[in-house]
Structures are given as structure tokens and as C-alpha cells.
């Protein structure tokens, strides 16, 4: 009895030694900062007077919800996420369907299509700002001028600036959906398609009735990852427009960054960070719930993200 107890204890200790290093680091860089951010969000606290911080309860949150700049950043973020997520998945998926059908040169074409995603977002943002979107020297306006259109000065007007960051983000992120969905496509079993063709189904019907249902898990998974990436995006927009002109492209992460690191309103900025986390958490929760529901309704579709969860 004593011996088995000791063995049990030793086994427990073993689990801890394997998991502890990663968990300790995660505690330092993730869990503690979250607790700290929540705590600080209840204070009126500025980096300009670090020693003076007064407890103000939920005032920072109330302020945020009454600040036009914040509400506008939320609107811009939602617009940007909606404008980027779905088109980037659609484009990636369409190309995955085409790529899946070819054999020769597949590997090299795939490698080339992945390049936008592999380039550092900062380099992408800065170079596109100058070499592509510049109103005088930019390639885009040059190409437009060839067909007789005089292009706008993209980044100095609100609507075109939003359009520009959306187009660029689609360009950067379509490879992600392409990569994941192409892998999923290549693993689909052949028999259902063959049977459908024998029964006289058109390719269009095959796509909607077989491909889409069978790819449900990967599609939802891609959607989850894409929308969360867009929602908290910072790099590209920060270097390309700095949130401008005015506040036209000021995403929530940029607004939070400016409030914290430029205006030094740390208590307020931490509250903004917490709001972002909560909103993103709700988005994830809704999507994951949806995934689990799908999963339960049809277990045979297996594979995918949740394959090894009971």
C-alpha cells in the first residue's frame, strides 16, 4: 500500500517536471500579465505619474464605451475583419480547388503562392506603401493609368486607405487558407465523388453537396484562425498608415497601442486590452461552439482539429 502510494506520488512528480518549465514561462508571459492588466484596468494610472494611481472601478471601461475614437476603432476593426477574412478564405479556397486538380509543377506553384505569407509583415507594409500604393510612383496607379484611369492617392483618404489595407491583407493571408484547405482537399476520399459522377451530378453539385460538407471542420477552423488574426492585426497597418489618415484605419490594437505607449494612459489602455480580449473570446466561443455542434451531429466526418479529443 505504501509502495503504490509512493509510486503514484513519483508519477505525479514526473508529470510536473515535464510540464512545469513551459507552464512557468506561460505564467510569466501570459497569465500574470492578464491578471495584471485586469487589475490595472481599474485604476486611473498614467506613465507620466507612475506613483499616483487611484482606484476608479469600472470607470475606464465606461470611458472607453463613451469615447468616439474607441467606438470608431471598433467599427474599423469589424469592417476590416469582415473585409479581409471572408475574401481571403474564398480566394485561398478557390485556388486550392484549382491547385488540387493539377499534377505537374504543383510543388513549385504552391511554394510561390506561399511567399506573401512568409514575408515579414513590416517589410510588406512598408514596401507596399512606397512601391505600390504611392500616388505618384506606385505601380498600382501606373497600371491604372495604362488603362486610362487616374488612380486616387490611396493612403491619404479614409475610404481608399481602408480599401488598401484590406486588399493588402487579403494578399498576405490568402496563402494560409490555400495551404490548409489544399491539404484537406487532397485527403478527401474519392468514392463519394465517383459515385456522384456516375449518378450524373454536375461538378457544381459535387462541390456544394460533397466537397463543402466534407470540408466543414477545416473550413470552420480556417475561419476561426483567420478572423482572430485579422481582429488583432497590428504590424501591417501600423507601418503602412499609422492608423491614418485621421483615424480611418485605426484598428483596436493600434488605438490601444497609441493610448498606452504614446499617450501613456496605462490604466485606460489596459482596460482596452481587456475589452479586446473579451470580444475576441466571445467570437472564438461562438465559433468553437458551432464546431462542436457540427462534430456531434456527424461523427463520421472525423479528422481535423478535434480528432483526438473525446
Amino acid at each position, binding site marked *: 500500500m505504501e509502495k503504490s502510494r509512493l509510486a503514484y506520488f513519483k508519477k505525479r512528480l514526473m508529470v510536473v517536471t515535464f510540464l512545469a*518549465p513551459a507552464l512557468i514561462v506561460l505564467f510569466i508571459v501570459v497569465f500574470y500579465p492578464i491578471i495584471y*492588466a485586469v487589475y490595472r484596468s481599474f485604476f486611473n494610472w498614467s506613465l507620466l505619474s507612475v506613483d499616483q494611481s487611484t482606484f476608479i472601478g469600472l470607470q475606464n471601461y465606461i470611458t472607453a464605451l463613451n469615447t468616439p475614437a474607441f467606438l470608431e476603432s471598433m467599427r474599423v476593426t469589424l469592417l476590416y475583419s469582415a473585409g479581409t477574412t471572408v475574401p481571403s478564405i474564398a480566394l485561398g479556397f478557390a485556388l486550392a480547388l484549382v491547385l488540387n486538380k493539377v499534377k505537374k509543377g504543383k510543388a513549385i506553384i504552391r511554394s510561390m503562392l506561399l511567399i506573401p505569407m512568409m514575408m515579414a509583415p513590416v517589410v510588406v507594409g512598408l514596401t507596399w506603401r512606397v512601391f505600390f500604393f504611392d500616388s505618384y510612383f506606385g505601380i498600382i496607379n501606373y497600371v491604372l493609368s495604362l488603362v486610362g484611369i487616374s488612380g486616387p492617392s490611396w493612403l491619404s483618404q479614409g475610404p481608399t486607405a481602408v480599401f488598401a489595407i484590406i486588399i493588402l491583407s487579403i494578399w498576405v493571408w490568402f496563402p494560409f487558407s490555400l495551404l490548409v484547405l489544399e491539404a484537406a482537399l487532397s485527403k478527401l476520399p474519392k468514392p463519394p465523388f465517383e459515385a456522384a459522377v456516375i449518378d450524373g451530378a454536375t461538378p457544381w453539385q459535387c462541390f456544394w453537396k460533397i466537397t463543402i460538407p466534407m470540408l466543414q471542420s477545416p473550413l470552420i477552423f480556417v475561419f476561426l484562425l483567420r478572423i482572430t488574426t485579422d481582429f488583432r492585426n497590428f504590424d501591417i497597418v501600423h507601418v503602412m498608415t499609422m492608423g491614418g489618415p485621421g483615424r480611418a484605419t485605426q484598428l483596436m490594437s493600434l488605438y490601444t497601442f497609441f493610448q498606452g505607449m504614446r499617450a501613456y494612459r496605462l490604466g485606460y489602455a489596459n482596460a482596452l486590452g481587456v475589452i479586446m480580449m473579451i470580444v475576441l473570446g466571445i467570437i472564438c466561443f461562438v465559433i468553437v461552439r458551432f464546431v462542436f455542434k457540427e462534430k456531434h451531429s456527424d461523427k463520421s466526418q472525423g479528422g481535423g482539429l478535434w480528432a483526438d*479529443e473525446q
Partner: protein
Amino acid sequence: MGGRTVTKKTREKHAMMLRYVILTGAAFVAVFPYFWIFLSSIKPPGEMMSIPPKVIFTPTAENYTAILGHGFLEALQNSLFLSIVSASIGVSLSCMAAYGLTRFKFRGRETLSFSFFAIRFVPFITLLLPLYTIMGSLGLLNSMFGLIVAYQLSHIPWMTWLMRSFFLEIPFTYEDAGMVDGLTRWGVFFRIAVPMVAPAIGSALLLGIIFAWNQYFIPLILGGFDTSPLTVGLYRYVGGDESPMLFGRLAAWGTLTVTPVILLSIVVRKHLVRAFAGSDV
């Protein structure tokens, strides 16, 4: 009958041609900006911004030599150090954690595994603002050590999830045999489990290096002048509002920043899907 198969064949041939046209077009759109940045980096300053754009010119290395004197080498050193060291540490910790999550049964195991995955969805800014204050009070701002620790917030979640999916694939039997032969748990881990997932570890390491190399947000907030990697260095050099129009320098710096990653990504292509998705989708 014969006629029908011929038309079917030609139709299939046309469809295949159309597919290649689409893919070539897409590949051109994907690659052109990289090509254009490189081309701009070797253009003489006078022809940089001429309209219509010049494609034929005498190449010059001027931009490349110019950036050397503006912190490029220091930033390159920082990038190399930060990405290699942070990814190595990340892979080691994640490998151990993933092993613990797959080889031991304990209460809350699935929840814990899922938490590793869920951390990926926390916005960086939510963590970086408090980290700025916390690290500031510890004197770790603008230090390599602080940055390497902070980089783990982007490494450990996906790396653990990825390694977990690999460990789940290899059968326990070899490890059980090792235990019977008298190896300790650590012996089994290092001599049996780790070698079996070695290729996956290699891919995770290379991908970790790529992600860390491209990292911008973390060093922008927690780093400083001496610890800037290539990304932040480039922004400081040409991106600020007061910076002059150093288009050629931007192109040269950009080319040197993205080229190694593009080459590396070809090496790790096989595992790219799993790493990006965090599991085998």
C-alpha cells in the same frame, strides 16, 4: 463513341490549360512584389521612381553598402540571436510539455491541452502593455533576455499543440519496451521519444525561427535601440514620419530580411500546414 471520348479529352485538356493559366496568374501576383522589391534595391537612385518604371538599368550595390552603416549588421545579429535562441528554448519547453500531455493521465489533461491552444487567441497588445510595466520594473526592457522570454508567448502555444499531435501519432509500445529494459522516464524521453519525432522537432524549430524573425510587435514595445531586430530596425530607419525618402535603402533592407525566410519556408514546406494549423487538419 470514339468521337465523344475525343471531345471529352479535349475538354479536359482545355480545363487543364485554364487551371494553369489561373495558377500562373496567381503565382505572378504572389511573387511579383518580392521581385519588385529586389529590383528596386539594385536600381540607381535616379531611376528608382521614374514613371514608367524602368526595368532595364545598370544594377548597383549602393543601397546594400549604405545600409551597413545604418545599423543593419547590428539588427541582423539581434534577429539571428533572438530567433534562434527563442525558438530553441520554445521547442525544448514545448516538447517536454507535449510529452507530459500525451504520456501521462491526470485530471484536467484535456482542458490543459486545450488551454495551450487557446492562448493563441489572446491579442498581443493585451499582454504586451502589462508586460511593458512588469519588465520595466524588473529592468528587463531593452534586454535580450526579456525579449527571449516574451517571444515564448508566441512560440509555446502552437509549438506544444504541434508536438502534441506528433507524440499522439507514435505508438507507446517502444517506450514501454524501454521502460521494461530499465530506462527511466527521462531516458525514455530522450533516447526513444525525442528521436522518433526528430523531423517534427526540426520543422518546429525552423518555423519558430521564421515566426520570431518576422516578429515586430513584441520587440517594438519591449525592445529598444540596442535590441532591435531587422523588422523594428527597418521601421526605425525608414518608416517614421520624419524619415527621408530612403526608398532604395528600404528595398535593400527588405530584400535581405525576407529572402532567408522564403528560402527556409521551402525547406519546411512539408510541415508548414501542420504548424500553421497547429494540428493535422
